[in-house]
């Protein structure tokens, strides 16, 4: 630590921190317009200039490092006058349309204009026509833009789309799509989030509400296992909606955290019911009384999972959750090899890595948050990114330094080869050393199609890396050989000093896997919770008893980042909740969240009350939300099985994969996302193999679930694997969620797209 003086106050700073960072951590204010905490200093607004003893002129505090013994002055009449002048310049020709601007009331330009008392327009400039652009979710009003560049930086540096750029030209500068006429991106909407004025806007939200009318409900995104922080912003609509609030938009604390488009635009998936349906509730209790099995998905809170576990303990139900079940087996197998109850990887270690291997996931759509952390590693540390998958992903190209294509089904063989490449010579356990030595590389290479040269290239490219991360995806977790794959993955943690992150497939797969004692298969009378069954509890509104959706519940999720994070009620639910059923069945607690402090400590949870779980953001600590699970010691078993015969998949293959912004029935219910058509995307080569043509309507049957899709050719794809979405399948989606993602299914042409 170093010590400097800011405005006469002694302030501590870490080496490498800037003056601005040091000041903010100490709670000292320096005005900025373009500074965005989560990206590199942009240095365009110049408001943050300060005086430094011994340095001539004004120093830009966002970029200049804090140095030991430095004396900084953040304010003086001269600094004030420069800042005021800069604000006067910012205000030149800025349209005075605050009354109809989305940003009004939460606008940095308004705030700083006020702060610096700019009450007259001393300067003017001739203006010219400025464009209004409108893309699907995102709109851009050039005349409101102050060119702070935050949107451009976040898009390139955090998201990785690199879809927008500045068109330079002095006063004529503007933001424009990069390399394309119209905006082509993954629609994360971070550009909207970071915009300090009303230039980048949500086309849906425009003219709907004033910032000050909206009430922020801090919560956790319910769509995937990243569990990102978000605010549901709601408003009561008066008599029209019988005083029921409605969510108008989702925002995020963009200085410190990031949100994808599904979280931002797919928020109104609530299940609205008129009131308590007593008859249905009675039937539900009857169903529970005779049930043998409760089958459920991982889109529930930890507390609900705990209730189900208690019900099991009391009534001996079989608890079946397929995706969490597979994940649980994966983690258990992993733990026996790593010696720790949980893996060592995290999103933070990923962003900090200088070498990354991604195996068995189409990560850009599977888990946007993981992808953003890979982007950060790539941009900031020039991380080598080895992307191993049967399909290349065009949109990952600007971070991937090596694509290794392997044959479908050969993940076990590929990981074994990778372990041999990366770990040989580092292993001090004879058995494992012998295992790697005895690998039949010729066979594995031939079957997986991953050659010696490619592996050598992986090794060379990662040779200088000091912080390597391995991301293991759902293709591995739901693989028939998942436990062996898990044990191979654990070798990287145990012997390679590599941080391993197995990406939990669904929102709360990790929580369920740790909390519930799961059974493999359903037997007898089955209650389905958000999944088909003899009696169905559903938050999708299509079951026998309505349940609240995740934006209507309070409780916690356990994220892929091993954190227990709270979510809150954004919208009321007037019906019955799971806790009501449990109480009626003698498993008693006043509130669902009473279970928060009872989550199993032997699995790493803490005995902390829901209301005591932190959820805040600060300049000194960044995002402080939830707590981290403890990693406990675990018994070690160093044995590995022989590699099973690698399977062969021939002909057209379907890969279960939702498009960006869709994660299943929840997102598909949201008003901005419900219009999306389920499309089967394949390469030209796939079309030939499956005898399909662009625009055909096809019926496919995957794992017993039938679905109709329009087939389209995606020119960026290669090979005979097509991307088959399942987000439109409602409750049935769960039936497929734990299958190995690749399948060879019958594809039947039933007509044309417009029929």
């Amino acid at each position, binding site marked *: 630590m170093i010590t400097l003086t800011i405005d006469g106050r002694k302030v501590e700073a870490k080496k490498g921190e800037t003056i601005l960072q040091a000041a903010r951590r100490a709670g000292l204010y320096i005005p900025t317009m373009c500074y965005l905490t989560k990206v590199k200093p942009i240095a365009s*607004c*110049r408001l943050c200039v300060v005086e430094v003893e011994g340095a001539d*002129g004004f120093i830009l505090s966002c970029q200049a490092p804090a140095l030991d013994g430095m004396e900084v002055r953040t304010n003086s009449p001269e600094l004030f006058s420069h800042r005021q002048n800069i604000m006067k310049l910012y205000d030149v020709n800025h349209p005075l349309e605050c009354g109809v601007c989305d940003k009004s009331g939460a606008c940095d330009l308004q705030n700083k204009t006020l702060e610096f008392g700019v009450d007259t327009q001393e*300067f003017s*400039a001739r203006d010219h026509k400025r464009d209004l652009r409108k893309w699907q979710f995102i709109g851009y009003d050039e005349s409101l833009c102050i060119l702070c560049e935050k949107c451009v930086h976040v898009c390139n*540096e955090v998201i990785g789309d690199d879809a927008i750029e*500045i068109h*330079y*030209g002095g006063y004529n500068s503007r933001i424009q799509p990069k390399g394309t006429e119209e905006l082509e991106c993954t629609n994360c909407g971070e550009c909207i989030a970071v915009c300090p004025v009303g230039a980048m806007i949500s086309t849906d939200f425009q003219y709907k509400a004033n910032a000050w009318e909206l009430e922020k409900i801090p919560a956790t995104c319910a769509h995937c296992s990243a569990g990102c922080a978000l605010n549901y912003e709601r408003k009561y609509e008066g008599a029209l909606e019988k005083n029921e609030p409605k969510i108008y938009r989702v925002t995020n604390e963009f200085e410190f955290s990031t949100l994808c488009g599904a979280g931002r635009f797919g928020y109104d998936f609530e299940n609205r019911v008129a009131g308590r349906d007593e008859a249905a509730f009675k039937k539900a209790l009857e169903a529970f009384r005779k049930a043998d099995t409760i089958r459920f998905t991982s889109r529930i809170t930890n507390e609900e999972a705990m209730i189900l576990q208690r019900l099991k303990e009391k009534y001996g139900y079989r608890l079946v959750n397929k995706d969490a079940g597979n994940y649980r087996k994966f983690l258990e197998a992993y733990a026996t090899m790593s010696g720790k109850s949980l893996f060592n990887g995290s999103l933070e270690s990923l962003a900090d890595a200088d070498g990354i291997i991604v195996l068995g996931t189409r990560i850009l759509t599977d888990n946007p948050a993981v992808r953003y952390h890979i982007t950060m590693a790539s941009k900031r540390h020039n991380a080598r990114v080895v992307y191993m998958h049967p399909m290349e992903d065009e949109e990952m190209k600007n971070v991937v330094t090596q694509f290794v294509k392997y044959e479908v089904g050969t993940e076990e063989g590929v990981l074994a080869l990778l372990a041999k490449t990366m770990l040989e010579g580092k292993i001090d356990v004879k058995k494992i050393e012998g295992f790697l030595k005895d690998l039949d590389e010729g066979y594995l290479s031939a079957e997986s199609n991953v050659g010696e040269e490619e592996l050598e290239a992986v090794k060379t490219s990662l040779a200088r890396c000091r912080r390597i991360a391995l991301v293991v995806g759902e293709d591995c977790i739901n693989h028939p050989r998942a436990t062996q794959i898990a044990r191979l993955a654990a070798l990287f943690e145990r012997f390679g000093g590599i941080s391993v992150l197995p990406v939990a497939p669904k929102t709360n797969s990790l929580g369920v896997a740790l909390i519930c004692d799961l059974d493999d298969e359903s037997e007898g009378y089955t209650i389905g919770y958000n999944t088909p069954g003899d009696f169905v509890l559903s938050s999708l509104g299509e079951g026998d008893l309505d349940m609240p959706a995740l934006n209507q519940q309070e409780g916690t999720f356990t994220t892929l980042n091993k954190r227990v994070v709270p979510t809150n009620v954004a919208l009321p639910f007037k019906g019955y909740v799971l806790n009501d059923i449990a109480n009626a069945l003698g498993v008693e607690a006043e509130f669902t969240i009473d279970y928060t402090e009872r989550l199993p400590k032997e699995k790493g949870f803490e005995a902390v009350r829901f209301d005591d779980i932190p959820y805040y953001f600060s300049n000194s600590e960044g995002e402080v939300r939830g707590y981290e699970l403890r990693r406990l010691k675990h018994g070690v078993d160093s044995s590995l099985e022989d590699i099973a015969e690698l399977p062969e998949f021939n002909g057209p293959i379907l890969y279960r994969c939702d498009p960006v912004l869709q994660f299943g029935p929840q997102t598909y219910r949201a008003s901005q996302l419900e219009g999306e058509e389920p499309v089967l995307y394949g390469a030209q080569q796939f079309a030939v193999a499956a005898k399909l043509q662009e625009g055909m309507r096809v019926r496919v049957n995957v794992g017993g679930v039938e679905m109709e899709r329009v087939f389209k050719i995606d020119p960026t794809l290669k090979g005979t694997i097509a991307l088959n979405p399942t987000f439109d399948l409602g409750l049935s989606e769960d039936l497929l969620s734990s299958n190995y993602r690749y399948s060879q299914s019958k594809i039947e042409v039933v007509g044309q797209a417009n029929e």
Partner: protein
Amino acid sequence: MARVVFSTWRGEFIDNRGKPEEEWVESEYKLPERYEADRDAKAFIGWDGFAVFDESIDVVRLGTEYAHTYQKYSEACGRCAPGRWGGRILYDLMDKIARGEGEVSDLEHLKEVSRTMMETSKCEIGRTVPKPLLDMMEHYHDTFMDLIENKKKSPDYDKEDISYIAKVTAPCMDACPTHVDIPAYIEGVRDLRYDDSLKATRKSMPLAHTCGRVCPHPCEDECRRANLDEPISIMELKRIGADYETDRGFEWLHPEEPAKEKTDKRVAIVGAGPAGLTAAYYLGVRGIQCDVYEELPVLGGEVAVGVPQYRMPIEKYNKDIELAKSVGTNFIMNTKVDAEMLRKFDKEYDATLLAFGTRLSKKVRAKNERDDMPGYWGAINFLDCVNLWVKYGIPIPQEVREQQMLDKEYVDLTGKTVVCVGGGFTSMDVVRCSIRCNADKVIMLYRRDEKTIIRNTTYEEYHEAVEEGVEFIFHSAVEEIIEDENGRLKALKVNRFELVPDPGGGRPQLVKIEGADFEIECDYLIPAVSQAADLGLLPEEWELELTSWGTLKTNGRDYMTSRKGLFAAGDCEYGPMTIVNAVGQARRAASVISRFVHTGEITLTDEEIMEDHLRRLRVYDKKEKVTGWLPGLPRQVSEKLGVDERKYNNREVNLGFTQEEAIAEAERCMRCYYIAMTAV
């Protein structure tokens, strides 16, 4: 020196207005009073003041145009609030006064905006554009007041016969022989937009991998950051963008899209070295078909066969070569061009560019020095033999093996003593390659001292050679080569010198120390004192003009030889010089040729004319005091392989910056863009 009516340039104050001509004071700076041979300049305005050459110039219009330029021409701008809006307001207010609608309060507003721009702008453009305008308002106050009080248009306001020719520059850009847009490519690194970084480099430097590694970086000698602490590590930051493209397997990031259709114009280029590749790239981008003839079996010229693998890995250089290929260049290898072919080119092509370098090793001028003596091995041939094997697996030709008594198909110096005479980059390559060829003992003889050898090469190069075990003997020269009974080189008789100060205060003289001679027994003497151009290919009847040092003569601006349509660039024009020098010349030549093939005329663009004027004037001012930046931030140093890791192999020694180091270094860059403008 320049004749001026008025000047505030670089702190001088000259006001000859109303004085008789014989009392005029001259400016001490090389201001561009003559724009072109037949065009006089009326005024010059820039970051450091303004100068008037023609008393009739309308300074208000001049200032207005200068402020306008900031808006119109400068791609660099638009990156900060004070610059973006302030620049616009400067222009609007100046224009308001110039068109006769100004108020006295506008002068105050101009001063106020100028003050904030000068103190807080992001780059030097914003900080310096107000400077000459303030000078004007002060020294031509009456002119301004006349327009304002009488609501009068400025005299030249509607005139269109005066050209205001502007150019954006920076001290580093000016110093770079090919004027790379250095602040832009550094900004690309700082902003984590590595594609933008590479595109900025390639605007004037197609060999981004190469000059991100082995450039002697004259830019760093004129980096303004040195006035504050240490110069930016400019060269190494160039690698970042190039590696970004290569590592991710992107398609070529061209600064401008290459012409989709080829024109019917064809150019022959002799030599596929840095100059030839550069010309081929910039001509190819403009749709001109180039045939490049290369004598060697490989492409790349001296960078391929001269510069060793450990300094310039061929995989990386090949990327630069592929870039030149990507615009449709046709390479014809293993073809030594002779006079007959040149005559043919003259008829068949629309222009010919000679870029064959200097590939004859000069002698050390010792007694008994013979090319055919076994053990006497010219540096160029020695490095050819080493590099062709190391980089391409091409064995040594039989005749060389015989002359140099080599029993393997590659250079193996086990048990041998090698003496190199030199002091420049080539000699460093020779001695360090000799170490890697496992020589027993490697000695470098140099006439001058340690300080000079470092100045002629780099600090790193010299110290790495010392670490690897090269023995340097300074103030020494070979007097005589001694052969054995079989006529093989056996030993050298070496004289020693000392530096004797000149009592008259002139340069100290090297004086031989009598009685200090000594002998070195050795197996090889490798002269690496300099190289000369092999001019055997020039048709005699063309009677091409040559320089006194035996290279092709051009005017150093358009690179045409004394024969119309025949151009020359790179070492065969300049003499042995740097890669970046060859690139700079070839880029200019390509530009001239691209117009010549269509019009038959030799012209320079205004951009190029200004480039040359500014270089004469010098953009960098060593004495300037830098403000607004925190001093004392150390220059980043990249990691190098340890001596034991590198000594006996050809791994790249300089591992380059980590991204963190690169970004930290890029953040030190002060973006010293300036705008200069000449009124003609």
